[in-house]
Structures are given as C-alpha cells and as structure tokens.
C-alpha cells in the first residue's frame, strides 16, 4: 500500500463505509435493502483490493460478488412473498454460532495484523510480493500461474461448468408425459389399469393423460 495522504484518506473512507454498510445489511428489515447494502459492502471491499495494488482481484470481486452472487440473492428474494414480513424481530439460533465465529475472525485479524515474524514466515506461497512486481503486477502473476502451472485445472473447470449447466438444464426441463409413460413401472401400471398390455394402448393412455388437463 503506497504511503501517501490520498491512500490513507481512501483507506479510512473505505473502512468506515464498509463497516457502516455491513451493519446496515444485518440490521435493516427489508431483505431487498439488505441485499443492496451487501452490494455497497462488496464495492468497498473491492476498493481495498484496488489500493493494495490488486486491480484484477478488485474487478473480479465486483464481477463475481456484486454481479453474480447478489443478483442470485435478488432472484431468490423475488420468488418469496415479501409483502407480509413478520412484525416481531426474529432472533435465531445462528446468533450463538455467529458470535464466537466473529470473535475468532477478530482474533485472527489481530494476529495477522500484528505480523509476528512467525506469522510472516508461515504466510508463503509461489508468488511473494517481489515475484509479483517482477512479473509486472498481480494480473500478470495470476495469468502466469493460470496459463503455465494450472492450465489443466483451468481447462478442466470449463468442462466441469459445462457438465453442471447440462445437469441443471436436465433437471429443470419440463417433464413430458411420455417420459412418465415410458418408464417401465409406470408402463406396467398403466397397462394393468387399462387391462391392456400392448404398447399402442399404453401410448394412447399416455396421450389421453396428456390431453385431459387442457
């Protein structure tokens, strides 16, 4: 982080705004307002990445979290009926899990922030800051890792996402009547019910079942 007055001003603004927005997120009653506060938090966290010199991470943060994840939340909220929110404030059991976790995170932040030599020693990896600046920045370092060492998992991820997309389409597609009728058990039941066992009659029964709701 460059040590000049603009950076310090930016840091304190981002710190104050992101803490305020997160408090707002957990305290407002309307879930849509909550989601919008979350977008504000995400933009400010992206700002932290930017002033730390990780431009790529900042853009990825906005594209993935603000662009994709919050939109997913909003879509889910759209499917709920939000006109009748409960009057009393709901205190749920996750609170008792959340408080220790928050304390744990706070301790972790202090330990890492204090930066004892032991901690500094244990935070290592393939790309220490010196290597990153040598390569010309964080985006370049990421590209080097992704397209040299991790090419196979990078390509594999696209196959995995294709498979997941196909799977989602398969599950979400409309169920056609002939699918049920062609299923052997159903076919056996249909034929038993009609006292007929020829495939043609079972098919007719399936067609009749398809037409009846209209």
């Amino acid at each position: 982080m460059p040590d000049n007055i603009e950076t310090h001003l930016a840091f304190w603004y981002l710190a104050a705004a992101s803490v305020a927005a997160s408090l707002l997120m957990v305290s407002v009653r309307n879930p849509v307002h909550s989601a919008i506060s979350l977008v504000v938090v995400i933009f400010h966290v992206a700002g932290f990445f930017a002033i730390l010199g990780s431009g790529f991470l900042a853009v990825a943060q906005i594209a993935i979290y603000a662009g994709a994840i919050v939109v997913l939340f909003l879509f889910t909220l759209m499917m709920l009926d939000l006109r009748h929110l409960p009057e009393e404030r709901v205190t749920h059991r996750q609170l008792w899990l959340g408080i220790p976790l928050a304390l744990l995170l706070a301790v972790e932040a202090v330990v890492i922030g204090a930066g004892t030599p032991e901690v500094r020693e244990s935070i290592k990896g393939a790309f220490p800051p010196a290597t990153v600046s040598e390569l010309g920045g964080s985006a370049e370092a990421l590209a080097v890792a992704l397209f040299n060492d991790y090419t196979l998992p990078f390509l594999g991820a696209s196959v995995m996402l294709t498979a997941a997309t196909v799977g989602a389409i398969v599950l979400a597609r409309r169920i056609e009547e002939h699918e049920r009728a062609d299923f052997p058990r159903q076919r056996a039941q249909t034929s038993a019910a009609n006292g007929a066992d020829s495939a043609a009659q079972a098919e007719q029964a399936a067609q009749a079942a398809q037409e009846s709701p209209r």
Partner: protein
Amino acid sequence: MIEPGDLGYVVPELIVLGTALTLLLWAAITRGDRRWMSVSIALAGNGSAALMLFMRTPADGAAVELFAGQLVVDGYSTFFRTLFLLLASLAIVFGAQRFPSAPLIDFAALLQFSLLGMMLLVGAADWATAFIAIETMAIPVYVLVGLTRFRRASLEAAMKYFALGAFASAVLVYGIAWSYGLTGTTSLAETADGIASRGDEPWSLFALGLILVALGFKVAAVPFHAWTPDAYQGAPTPAAAFVSVGPKVAAMALLARVVTLAFEPLAANITVALAVIAAATMILGNLAAIAQSDVKRMLGYSSIAHTGYMLVGVAAVSQTDAGADFVGVPSVLFYGFVYALMTFGAFAVAYVVEAQTDSNDLSAFRGLARRSMLPAAAMAVFMLSLTGVPPLSGFLGKLYILQSAVDAGLGWLAVTLVVTSVVSAFYYLRVVVLMFMEDEDAPAAASAAADAPAASGAVADAHSAVVAVTAGATVAFGIVGGGLLAWAQAAVASSLL
C-alpha cells in the same frame, strides 16, 4: 503450459469428452427414438478410449508427469481408467433398458462427463486438478440420482446427496487451503516434503483431518455415510449401480494416493485414524444392512461395509515403512476392481426383479429361480462373492486385504473384517434362500404372470449381457485372480506413490 507431447497421453480423456459433447449435439439435431444410437456413440467412444489407453502407455512403464506436474500417467491411473471405462459402458447399456429415448441421452452424456472426472481424478498429481476432477465426477452424478425427477424419492435423494456432497467439497477445499498454507505448494509430491519438514505438528494433522473427512464423505465411510442408502434407494437403478461403484472407487484411489504420497510423512497417524474409521464402517454397514427390506437400501449399506474392507487395505498401506513396496496398495486395487463388478451386477439383477414385479422389496426375490433362472443364478454368484465365499473373486479380494492387514501388524482389524464378513453372510444368503428355496407369494406370482409380456420385453438381451459379463468376471477373477493381482502389482510398481 500445454506441451503438444502431453496431449498424446490424454487422448482417452479427450475421446470421452468428445463423446459427451457429441451426445448432446446429437440430442439437439435429431428426433424420434435415439436409444440405440446413443448407446452406440457412447460404447464406440469408450471402446476407442480403452484402445488408446493401451496404445499410448509410457515407455519403460514409468510414471509420466504432464501439464506442469498437474496430471500423472502411470500404471495406477491406467488400471483405474480401464475399470471406469468398463463400468461406464455397462452403465449405458443398463440405462438403455431403463430410460426412454430423451432421458437416456441425458443419462449417457452426464455419465461420460462423470467418467471424464473419474479418469482425471485417478491421475491427479496436484490438489488443483484433484479438486476440479472430483467435482466433474460428482456434479453429473447428483443429476443422475435425480434423473427421474417426477418421483419425489428421486429428487429427495438427489437433494440430500448434493447438499452433503457440496458440504464435503467445501471441507476438502478448506483442507487443501490449510495444506497449501503450511507447505506453499499444491503439488502432491511437494506437499510431502513440506509436511515432512514440519513434522507432525497439530496444524498438519488438522489439514490431514479435514481432507480425510471430505474423502470419507465421498467413499461413504462411517460416520459420513448417512447419504448412501437414501441416495441409492431413491436413484433410478442404473444410476444407483454406477454411483455405488464408480465415484466410490475413484475417491478411494485418490485417498490411497494421498496417504501414500502427499501425507506419507504422517503415515502412523493416518493408520490409526483409518483403522478406527474402517472398523466402525465395517461394523455399522453390516449390522444396518441386516435390518433392510429394500434391496437397493440393503446394497447401500453393503457398499458402506465394503468401503470399510477397502479402508482396511488403505490403513495397511500407510503402515508400511517408506521405501517398501506398499504391500497394501495392490490389494486395494484388486478389491476395488472386483467390488465394482459384483456390486454393479447385483444392481443389474435387482433391476430385472424391479421390471418383473414393480418392486424393490426383498420379498420380490421370492422364487426368482422359478421365474427366471439365469438372473437368479447370477444374483447367487454376486451375493456369495460379496460375502466372500471361495472360489469367487470377493473371497480373493478379502484374502489379499487380510494378508496386507496382518503384514502391517493390524491383527485386530483383520479379526474385525472376518467377524463382520460372517455377519454379512446373514443378509446376503437370505437373498439366495429367498430366490431358490421359497415359493413366490400368490399375489406376486399373479402380477408377475400378468406382466409377463412387458417383463420379457423390458429385460432384453443387452441387459442379460450386462448381468452375464459381471457374473462371468466375478467367477473368473476368483479362479484366475492371480492375473488381476499381478496387473495391480505391476501398476503400483510403476506409479507415483
């Protein structure tokens, strides 16, 4: 960086991917009954992939690292890839019996994606590849379980399997992150150096524990097994057959590579942990199977018990001193191979009964020998082999596992294995008794007679071939099991382990 030479070694994987995409395109551009065409595409793809697997093996049988150390092609991965190509081919023929045209293409394409994930998983030499491969394997399988989405049971099974599987993946990534934080590398081989230099400090054990928990979910070891019976019972039978063998054996292969490679310096701790898990898995799996009345649920608990047997082999692996020839690994390979064939076959016969009587209840097996002799005979072979009766392959598998457990000084675990196998005889032999020694119920007989034309049409020659191949292999590997064991030993000898 992709070296052109590297691509030569992954031609089988590329063919499998090509087959999956071809099936999807085929589905988009054609109409009508496409069942036999989709089976042909998938079988041709898997056949040529298997051919390429053996045409392009590394010279002098050594392990070859590809893609900057992400993937390794060695005897170990070739052994498992052969098994998976066989299983996926059997599953597609099985699926053609069960599904009409459109769902069959979905089934075949998702199966090929899952197959690709399993093939990459057994060759993974880096955590990044291992994670992507495990997800490519698992995500299509969740969908396969829920493929008959108009049945509540199927959707419920898929949802449970998905939720627990996603949770296990999250735990796996957390463990990988810890391992990376401790060692500064994602490579399995380099992880071992990093762990060795740190000794068995609590953080290393924490990382190891998270990874063992996650893989425990994937192989369905107690206490992470709860999803298994529900998933198998709710899934359409061909999907259950594939899920119970493919992903389980692939995850077991990764587990064996992880304990012998990445976390080898912690071998003593791994043995203790895995021995306890294996004992619990064998005991609970076998005891719970006794109480089941649904055949798919029973096979679910039976598959948990067999996970326990394989884990005994893995526990014995890690007990061996470094530098020794890992006595236990070939026995795990052998067991994985024969377990997959006999369990798959048992599901295939369960489907024959399902098509005849519209029921998965054990009572539907009553008098099966009178109705259809060949499936009944094959089921008897599978049940006896799963129990571990000589001269069938399940017996040899257990013998090799026992041998490696005793060699590794895990006598008490070997005793547990024998005792629980005796318990398992109770529920496996009950099926045999029902099939051969009891007459069918009057109503069941009537409905079977009424369905006779549908039943004979529903169980066609291709499905009989699936039953025959698995039963034949179960008998053959029991008699000439030495050949398969020799292959497993050669595979392990030339491997990155």
